[in-house]
């Protein structure tokens, strides 16, 4: 990540944690309904859905981060991402706002963070009220060997 200039982030919450996604990677935000389960797929895959004629592979960020599932699974929101010519959707709890933050203020990920979190975290911002973890989207979508995912 560049150390100069400002980066725009879309903030989302997963569990109680605030995350930031680089805005140029976010394709759209949509409500994820009628998700078809994919049997035998790795754990973090919530399923597939039809988004305006495209088939989108949905990733459950809670499972990805080893968080307990959400109680109320209606009105799930998702962030649409394009990766390697394919469409993915990250299931999140809530979409927040767009935030512009200086690249220089990004701090490294604490070493004592849970390894699953550390894998997908690109850095941390200390905001006034919260900490915001910058999500490394490539890492989230990287195809992991099965053992690691299980």
């Amino acid at each position, binding site marked *: 990540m560049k150390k100069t200039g400002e980066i725009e982030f879309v903030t989302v919450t997963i569990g109680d944690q605030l995350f930031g996604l680089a805005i140029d990677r976010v394709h759209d935000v949509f409500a994820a309904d*009628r998700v*078809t*389960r*994919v*049997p*035998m*797929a*790795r754990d973090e*895959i919530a399923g*597939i*859905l*039809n988004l305006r*004629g495209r*088939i989108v*592979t949905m*990733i459950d960020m809670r499972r990805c981060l080893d968080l307990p599932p959400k109680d109320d699974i209606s009105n799930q929101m998702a962030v649409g991402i394009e990766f*390697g010519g*394919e*469409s*993915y959707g990250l299931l999140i709890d809530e979409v927040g706002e767009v935030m512009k933050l200086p690249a220089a203020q990004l701090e490294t990920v604490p070493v004592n963070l849970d390894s699953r979190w550390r894998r997908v975290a690109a850095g941390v911002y200390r905001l006034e009220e919260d900490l915001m973890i910058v999500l490394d989207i490539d890492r989230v*979508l990287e*195809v992991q060997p*099965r053992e690691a995912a299980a």
Partner: protein
Amino acid sequence: MDDLLRDFLTETSESLDVVDVELVRFEQEPNNHDILANIFRLVHTIKGTCGFLGLPRLEALAHAAETLMGKFRDGLPVTSAAVSLILKTIDRIKKILGDLEKSGGEPQGGDDDLIAKLVAMSEGAPTPAAGQPKPKAEPPLVVQTLERELRPGEVSLDELERAFRETEVEIVAVDAEPAAAPAPVTAKKEEPAAEARDPKPRRVNIRREEDQREEAAKAQTLRVQVETLERLMTMVSELVLTRNQLLEIMRHKQDSEFKVPLQRLSNVTAELQEGVIKTRMQPIGNAWAKLPRIVRDLAKELNKEIELEMHGAETELDRQILEVIRDPLTHIVRNSADHGLETTEERRRLGKPEQGTIRLSAYHESGQIVIQIADDGKGLNTARIREKAIAKGLMQEGDKLSDAQIHKFIFASGFSTADRITNVSGRGVGMDVVKTNIDQIGGSIDLKSVAGKGTTLSIKIPLTLAIVPALLVESAKERFAIPQSAVVELVRVNATSKHKIERVKDAPVLRLRNKLLPLAHLSSLLNLNKGAVETENAFIVVMQVGKKNLGIVVDTVFHTEEIVVKPMSSMLRDLTMFSGNTILGDGSVIMIIDPNGLASTLGARLEGEGNETEQAEEEVRVNEAERPISFLVFRAGSREPKAIPLSLITRLEEIDAVKIEISNGKYLVQYRGGLMPLVPINDQVKVRSEGMQPLLVFIDSNRALGLVVDEIVDVIEDRLDIQVGSANPGTIGSAIIGGKATEILDVAHYLPLAYADWFIRKEKGAKDSKCRVLFVDDSAFFCNMLLPVLKAAGYDVTTATSGAEALEIVEREGSFDAVVSDIEMPGMSGFEFAETLRKNARFADIPIIALSSHSSAAVVERGRKSGFHNFVAKFDRQGLLTALKHVPQEISKAA
């Protein structure tokens, strides 16, 4: 790059491919003037166009090659060195064309080396042999001289003249140059001469017809960019989806004015779809075009004589698929040439024809395309593969696998047995890559190898990938699509239907027309919910994967829909159970089941019985012991597994032990309205007094016997290979089944234990004097299995273990009432036996019934010709009895 140049490139590379093929043909038939004329014409066109477009390098090369070919036409003997040189030249031309395509201009450099060789060969050529037609036989040319030396690429006038004469039809038709005008006159004059020296003047006419047809065909084809077609295909896919959506909406509305127009739209869409798919179709010959050349070069390099036969080159398939299989095919053919076929010397020593053959064939079969690559070489080196498989940890030293199973290892990743890394194959790209490619497109590959006879690879691939009809099913509340091409039939099971899901231990099976179909619940295959699975009310989708049938149990079957296959995202690609996903008419997304993945998960081995598609002769060659049969494996008395061929058992039961009664010192149970005696299979087995007692039930014309065992373990398909015989009554011997030493029990031993008269008893309606039956089978095992059945039915049975022995017995003991003979026997086959017997007038009337594991039409036909009266499947006891009862009247007369 301008359009002209682009057109030139496409056209030229096509022409060159043709030249490649034709040259190889020409080398084999150097006297075929048609081929030469065709090559000459193509090269000439290339040369001409190059000159026109200002491509001096290409022009010079083409010219030099053309000159040499001109010499061939004049009677220069065609040597393979010369052909090699021309092929080399063509390679160079292709290389230049490749650069031209990339950069838009000819690359730097010269071709003097090649040109010099070509010129040397055409000039230094020895004068034509005496027997060969001499150019002097032609009417002398008017010698026209040019004031200066010819520049490279220029044609001397007499050559031009000759070119005109040879190709007069086309030139008249196409070329409007006035210079062409006198040509036909010359040609006409020449014609009688041509007839005089050519024994088959018809050829000339044929060529003309072809030329004209080609002309006509040219006018009706159009070059279209592949992208345009692809885009069209995408649009049609979208249209199909929208149509499906509309149909889905309409399904819920009974009366609507939209119904009729929608129906029309639907039909038009279907036609459009078909049309677009057709535009994507290409003959498979396109993927084969490079093979003759490759094989020729290999033959030279490896010092082998190889003939490449190609059948069904016109079979069409989707170009997307064509691209995928092109390389695998090339690889397989290379393999056949390199490893499969022996050197000429070796073949001579083995008494085989010196020329090895690689036969490529393609044809349509039930919505799929089958491509076969067969060679008549030495076959796979089983020992070597075995060694390698053990070294790679794919199997254990002691594993007892059939040859066919061992051969399958060549498809394992990173498996190459080439002793040496040759230039040709063994470069690390092995059969595993071939298999992966073919799997990718939903195809399957099968292999059959006979040592010393050759190897045949069969590849089955779908016609198209983009839009396929699929059956929509539901399992555990989830819907899935199963490609219709894999679905054979649907069977409904519920409380009242005649089909029921039965269980052998835990494995669900279905009896379907005398065959036991292994079943699997889709929900458990997909780990959907491990809870209660519906077996009372379900649908069974019978699928054929490879040669194997299997049944998938689902909760509901909806309808068939044309689905547009979309690839899965890379995060899902490791799922072998699915081949893609699709959007349905109602907008939901569903996964498409991959029948191959399903079958391999089910552990179904792809070889095995199933539907035979091979030819009769090939089937007969397969050794009996190689054919896997299903065994019921159980425990009785000890830990060691015991087994009985499943087909001999009528039913498997578990009864409540409290229902077992003892009467007269025998265990009995009330079963189906009668009393069934229970016999412990050996002394160590205790009949249970509580809980469930597993039984193997044998029923034979209203009599039932229950064999008491401790535990039913499994049904395992394996080949029968008795390793250690047994002196124990009741045991045939030991074989390895499912990797474990297993005792094979002799059913015949147990039947009289329950009914002392089991064998003496006559079948109702049998005559007083026993019918004498001669039973011929080389396998003692089958004799043992079927003998009790025949005896029980009241026949007096004599056995013979070979055709020769049977003939002796017939000779000695006189007439039998019927002969039952196996077909696959070492030495004299059943066919030969029957033929021999028929030839002897004394025995010509004896009815002969064939026992065969195959009942394909071809085998039956062959059998009828040999004199068999009837065909019975090997394990079909009832069928055999019926057949014996119905043998022609001769029996009763004789008896």
